[in-house]
């Protein structure tokens, strides 16, 4: 059985009458990229704050890297890195100074700090700009530097709270590449919160979905898509008349049929052999240009999960 980086047990946090985290039980194996998903106000940031020992749980508990969050939060922080909602960089200092400060915080020796600064800045392509103050840097560059900062002390566990939020497409893609490279090269466990489902599909080995502080789904992205998202057929063509649609809706395994201009989407209740169905449509006079068979995207799964919980 894989060692666990994080294990929470009925973790609960209340702020007055608001229950921000509600009975959350999850297990995160070491060495994976774990996505923690949920809409705004779902309790993602509160969960990270509890796991880092910055706020105490009202009920339940959690262990990180074998340490209890209530008793040993200092040990947990010593072994973790965090990129929270904001980059948390000192703009009046240079890039190298920012990394040096955090290297000193984790008590690296001077030579270790210098080697680490060079390695990390080279890895993210900012070594040549190490002496510049950050005030005029773009948000993407700062975010890359903040990511490097979380790795300065070789942490075993890294928390990233929406690491690509507010970045343009190119910057977000670069950050994702950096996370993938760093996870591969440094072998650390990443705990990432995000709204971006594309990011989750590209990065995460496992995901948990929460809503109003409660866990609504957990598993590998593929598992979630299989369980929560129905198989479907997308057909582009002409001749989707009322008779054809009635025919499809009358079939036992078809759960719904949607027509948008030249595209017909057929959702199935279970995986079936779709070739005979396509043949029947052709026999009914439909002209088919393209057929795509697939499952729901993670985004659709997410929306479904959110609606189910309402």
């Amino acid at each position, binding site marked *: 059985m894989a060692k666990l980086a994080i294990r929470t047990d009925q973790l609960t946090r209340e702020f007055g009458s608001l229950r921000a985290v509600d009975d959350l039980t999850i297990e995160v194996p070491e060495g994976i990229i774990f996505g923690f998903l949920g809409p705004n106000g779902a309790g993602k940031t509160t969960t990270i704050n509890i796991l880092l020992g*910055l706020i105490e749980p009202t009920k339940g508990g959690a262990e990180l890297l074998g340490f209890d969050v209530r008793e040993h939060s200092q040990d947990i922080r010593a072994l973790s890195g*965090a990129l929270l909602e904001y980059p948390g960089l000192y703009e009046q200092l240079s890039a190298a100074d920012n990394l040096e400060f955090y290297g000193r915080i984790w008590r690296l020796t001077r030579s270790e700090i210098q080697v680490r600064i060079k390695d990390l800045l080279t890895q993210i392509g900012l070594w040549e700009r190490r002496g510049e103050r950050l005030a005029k840097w773009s948000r993407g560059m700062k975010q890359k530097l903040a990511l490097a900062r979380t790795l300065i002390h070789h942490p075993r566990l890294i928390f990233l709270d929406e690491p690509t939020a507010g970045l343009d497409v190119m910057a977000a893609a670069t950050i994702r590449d950096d996370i993938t490279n760093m996870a591969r090269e440094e072998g650390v466990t990443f705990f990432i919160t995000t709204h971006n489902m594309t990011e989750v599909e590209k990065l995460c080995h496992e995901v948990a979905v929460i809503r109003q502080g409660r866990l609504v789904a957990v598993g590998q992205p593929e598992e979630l898509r299989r369980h929560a998202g129905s198989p479907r057929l997308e057909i582009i063509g002409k001749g989707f008349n009322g008779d054809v649609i009635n025919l499809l809706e009358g079939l036992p395994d078809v759960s719904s049929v949607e027509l948008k201009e030249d595209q017909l989407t057929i959702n199935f209740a279970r995986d079936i052999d779709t070739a005979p169905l396509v043949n029947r449509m052709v026999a009914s006079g439909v002209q088919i240009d393209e057929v795509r068979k697939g499952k729901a995207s993670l985004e659709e799964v997410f929306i479904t999960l959110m609606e189910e919980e309402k």
Partner: protein
Amino acid sequence: MIADILTVIWKERRSLFRHHGSRLRAIFSLVVPIAVFGILLPWQEGSGWIEGFWSIITCVFIPLLLVGTIIPESFAGERERHTLETLLSSRLPDQAILFGKIIVAIIYGWGMTLIVLLLGLIIANATGWEGQIILFPPIIALADVVVSLLLAAIMASLGVFISLKSATVQGATQMLMATTLFPILILGISFTFIFSMKGDLSQRIKNALESLDQTQAVLITIAVLFVICSCLFWAAAVRFKRQKLIGS
């Protein structure tokens, strides 16, 4: 713990004149008090600046002004610039962050006060040269050194307390200045009023002040400031806890 405090001091020292990216503004805010208290007043007063209470006034205002500018930047600034959460998510103990920041502010405020006093001493001697070097009377020298240190520490502790309740640096600075300058203003107005009064009460107060033993007055002042400083420092240390800072 010492190593952690030194780390915070390292960072604070590097940031000292770089807040808001304007080193010029920071240096200007330093030059004005030096020019007024360290050059202009000693120039005008000559040896009177050394032998009278001018140096004490310097020891009151310089730490208040300098520490009052640095501390909100250091604490409310971390909150305003969203660096506090990241700092608190590191392995640094709460006390190391607090002590490191306070130590830099005190050393800065106190150190600059001593430099201004030395500068004033040189200028007062040079402009009012009477054939020999005039030094501060021992009790005034003691008051200058200790009162400025205690006031810097009071200002730093009070500044922490106020900064942690303020969302912005500007708000914290204004509140801190108002909180510290208000009692001084009231004291000044009261003395002016008393000395302008005619009658028995005014005369009795004047006599009491004139008969006050200088050494006793200085020691009482130091003791009172020490108690205030200890209380404020304790309050700041109690307030500066991760759970309270993030949970609030």
